């Protein structure tokens, strides 16, 4: 790049079944160990679909917010900014699905029975906008926003954060995604026949569905000017963001992935690079037959030269958190020059036509890409770059 990067990534934070924090996550990826529970511990269910949980975690004010708080704290420590805000205008953008929906089945059961439901559940819900909660918790003065584009929410949150900075609305933005496991999406994804009864196998010929997970992944985005003013240097920057819409189906992706490809090209355009400069792709790779077929076609077409893997074999599909977590994993891959393995993959699917990276291995490159696809036809692509 001939010009200085406009948006630095000043901090990273992650909480998922792959680990509480960056160091644990890196260890999990290097050991290739998967932590899968046969059934969720947070709620009772008659279904027997495995999940990937974040254990021993507070549920106050909600697990969605509690995980986000820990991931944000980790990112802010790396960014060396939280307690020295000065005149910095710091915004918060959160991607979530469960985190903005009122889904208390106990409340509804009581309502249906005619008994008095616990009104405290409502009050708690109305206080649990994750973006607003985090803004208040960290005493930030900038704008806040919760974006809910299903499984692309976290990636879009990071993209929005970069747009805020470019538009001069903020100096710094805490952006990412967070979601907890919940009975409603667990049974809902089962009703759509998208859950697997075994550990997921992204891009594998015999993949038969996803495992739900939970977690939070956040980055601190910062204008170059702001970092320079406070003498902060970062090795990473957000090179590009693109989003495009299928306008196709309520839950299924466009079969040819046309608008995923468009989102990727928009991210290239923003970054001023081509596909050839991408060293690693952290794919959405949910392990559902349709997602992986559609996404696989696009990735094969554009990135036959790059290492590709989905990290959902370690985290499960964390819905609104996925794009945030995977942006963090992509940034870690670039920083540490390694590709996390695509856990669960065994056999190439001829309809996809490539095999992802199955053993953690090194790579060198300046750019990595993270892709996200969501219900409603939302596609998002983030490109992370490394400063020389």
């Amino acid at each position, binding site marked *: 790049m001939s010009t200085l990067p406009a948006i630095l990534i000043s901090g990273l934070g992650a909480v998922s079944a792959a680990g509480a924090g960056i160091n644990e996550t890196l260890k999990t990826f290097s050991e290739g160990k998967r932590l899968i529970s046969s059934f969720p511990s947070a709620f009772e*269910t*008659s*279904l027997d679909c495995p999940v990937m949980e974040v254990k021993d975690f507070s549920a106050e004010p909600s697990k969605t917010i509690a995980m986000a708080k820990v991931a944000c704290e980790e990112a802010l420590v790396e960014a060396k900014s939280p307690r020295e805000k000065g005149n910095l205008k710091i915004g918060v953008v959160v991607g979530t*699905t469960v985190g*903005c*929906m*009122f*889904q208390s*089945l106990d409340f*509804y*059961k009581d*309502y*249906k029975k*005619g008994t008095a439901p616990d*009104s405290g559940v*409502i*009050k708690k819900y*109305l206080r649990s*906008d994750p*973006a*607003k909660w985090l803004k208040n918790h960290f005493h930030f003065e900038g*704008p*806040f*926003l*919760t*974006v*809910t*584009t*299903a499984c692309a929410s976290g990636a*879009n949150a990071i993209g*929005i954060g970069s*747009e*805020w900075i*470019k*538009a001069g*609305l903020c100096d710094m933005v805490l952006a990412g995604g967070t979601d907890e496991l919940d009975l*409603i999406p667990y*049974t*809902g*994804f*089962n*009703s*759509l*026949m998208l859950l697997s009864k075994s550990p997921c196998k992204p891009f594998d010929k015999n993949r038969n569905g996803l495992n739900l997970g939970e977690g939070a992944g956040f980055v601190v985005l910062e204008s170059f000017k702001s970092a320079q003013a406070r003498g902060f240097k970062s090795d990473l920057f957000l090179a590009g963001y693109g*989003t*495009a*819409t*299928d*306008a*196709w*189906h*309520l*839950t299924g992706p466009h079969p040819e992935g046309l*608008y995923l490809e*468009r989102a990727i090209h928009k991210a290239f355009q923003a970054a001023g690079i081509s596909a050839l400069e991408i060293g690693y792709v952290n794919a959405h790779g949910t392990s559902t037959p349709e997602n992986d077929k559609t996404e696989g076609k696009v990735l094969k077409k554009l990135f036959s030269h790059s290492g590709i893997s989905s990290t959902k074999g370690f985290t499960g599909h964390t819905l609104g958190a996925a794009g945030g977590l995977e942006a963090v994993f992509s940034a870690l891959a670039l920083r540490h020059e390694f590709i996390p393995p695509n856990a669960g993959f065994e056999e190439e699917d001829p309809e996809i036509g490539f095999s992802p990276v199955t053993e953690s291995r090194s790579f060198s490159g300046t750019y990595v890409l993270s892709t996200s696809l*969501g*219900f*409603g*036809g*939302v596609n998002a692509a983030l490109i992370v770059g490394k400063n020389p």
Partner: protein
Amino acid sequence: MTLYIQGIGIVFSGGCGIKALESTLEKGLIRPSSFSLPQRGIDNKKVLRVDPSLLLGYGHEKKLRRAHPINCMALIAAEEALKEANLPLTGDTDTGVLLATGLGSHKATFEYQDSLLTYGEKEASPTQFSHSVHNSSMSYLTQHLNLHGPALTISNFCHSFENALLLAYAWIFQGACSKVLLGVSEEFGDVLGYILNGLQIGEKDFIPGEGAVFFLLSADKGNACCALDPFVSSPLSLKDSVLYAGINPGVFPSEIKGEFLTTYGKYFGWMMTQNAFMTALGALMLEKQKKYPLPCEQENADGPKSFNQKQLLIGTSHLDESFSFIRLYTT
């Protein structure tokens, strides 16, 4: 940078389209329906609901057969905004879409829970689940209008509309798209009625509502009806009329009380994103230079009066006791 409103589309209890809004405002008449939950001791409470028959006749009946009213209201309001702007956008990739919603598709969520309780976890309804996702209205909207640009759903309870405006500004400012179709969609249902009754928010004559309103925004003046500024940090410096949206005007700074603090919100009923509806009303007042009568449940003899204003503030008091302002001004 200025955001210009090129077109407004609305679905509310008074009808569909900006002409229906104008007609309602000219008459100053609202006709609330009633809402009762006898087993809950809620009897004959007023609500401003959208007549489902209003949502027919747009030629979408087959494609929208599984859609919920919240999805249909969003689509029709968006179509009306495009029609008013005289800008067919089909197949467009340069127009962003932002849907703001305070509570999203809560009726589908409860209907999904019904299916879960009735048929069990293994037989719960996939249709209701997919419609319960906050992004479902956006999906219908982009499919039917064939829009492929950025399309996001924003949900920050009462702050949803103003936060979406901020993002529209950022998108247009840094060239992510040249136009943004931005709107809100909210629905009313029995469970929400029960919840609102229990929370005892607002005044005695609090009336909840439902509907959708969309704006086509751009940085080009074109034939804009008015301009919009979402960054009003110091309303006291502006000697404007204030249209009020929300439930508790007491949270506003005392200096701006009484200027023009009215109850126009009752044209639409209370919703988390009522300030979007008030923005539509304010835009119409500025464009027509008319001060419409306050809403009334009987024939209103007053009629509109002339209104010599170049700008208006839409002041919103939020459930969390914060307040915010959006400035509208003539072009």
